[in-house]
């Protein structure tokens, strides 16, 4: 049991570290595209770590399944959301170039 506790503590700490890093990135990076970089990569990794840490605390397969589903859905959503955001920015850029 103690092994699982240690493992989950380790993963959650890692998760928190990555969350922190992505927050710093969000605040410090110069433009939207760079900031999205921080969010899309570090955040999802962090969430994965935290969820993995939580999984080690569970024995019920249903709950483990739900936890993993959360991660998969978040990954998909943030990838799509990031894509849509980037698309919008690019279209805006193109429009500005045409105008200017």
């Amino acid at each position, binding site marked *: 049991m103690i092994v699982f506790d240690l493992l989950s503590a380790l993963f959650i700490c890692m998760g928190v570290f990555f969350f922190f890093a992505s927050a710093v990135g969000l605040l410090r990076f110069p433009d939207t595209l760079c900031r999205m970089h921080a969010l899309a990569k570090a955040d999802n990794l962090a969430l994965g770590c935290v969820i993995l840490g939580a999984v080690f605390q569970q024995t019920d397969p249903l709950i483990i399944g739900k936890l993993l589903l959360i991660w998969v859905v978040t990954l998909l959503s943030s990838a*799509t959301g990031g*894509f849509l955001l980037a698309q919008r920015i690019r279209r805006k850029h193109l429009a500005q170039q045409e105008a200017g």
Partner: protein
Amino acid sequence: MTTGLIFDIVLAFSLVVLAIITLRQRTPGESVVQLMIFGLLLALSWLRVDAPDLALTEAAIGSGVTGALLLAALHRTGFGTPFPSAVSPWIRYPVTIGCALLGAVLSLVVMYTWDQPAGLTDPAYAHLEESGTQNPVTAVILNYRGYDTLLEIGVLLVAALSVYTLSGPASGTPVKPPGPIFRFYMRVMTPVFWLVVPYMVWVGGRAPGGAFQAGALLSGLGALTLLGPTPWPLRLKRRVVRWGLSLGFSLFLVTAAWMWQYGNLLAYPTEQAATWILLIEIACTLSIGISLTVMFAGCAGWLHEDPERAV
């Protein structure tokens, strides 16, 4: 001082600060983003006071749907137009002082009377057996106080209808085709939504969940579909939309009429209560989902292609 308490203090403090920050943003777009963050943190605080049902609802409706509605409206009016400069100090300062006084009075009153709790916890739990559900919140909204919920579904219906009355010129700028990644996402997520929504309804009988949370999720699917390449909700026959909007309310009324034989409006006999509650929840979920989708489309200005026709 325990760790939990420190967490509470930090969270409560950041909620207040976030509320201020949200209202001090320069542009509408920024304030919406702040509001959504505020809503998520608020949901977290509701978990801390043992209200998981409400935390789910707040995250789904308070933060998610409201945020989507605000963003949809900004799609029309513009994200980045800065707010005009502040109002005259003759209004601002008295209002601020008055509000601060109100806050101080309320805080003192609450602190002063804190140790005299009163409520209906005991009777609500005592009759849980007869209510046809094991989730006390579901029991309150669909059994003990089902009459309120009937009227509340009416509010939702009427609000959606009112949005429908706004048949102005077709104004909403259509969204550009969103590309293959979004299409793939919708292909994957649509079944997931259709799996999670019924689960949410079903689980509401025993654990946090229920029609409102499920309806909010359904409206999420509706909003996503509106963004997609084939916005089928827009092409639905208006008659279908009308039926869908009124489904929950109608079923509530039909239930009420059916209960004639048992002597009261929504007094389900104990052994049938579970069935009726489930039926009403399914109908309400669909209606809530459709109403919120209609509102989303209305906020974005995508409701009417034909200016002269309403509903």
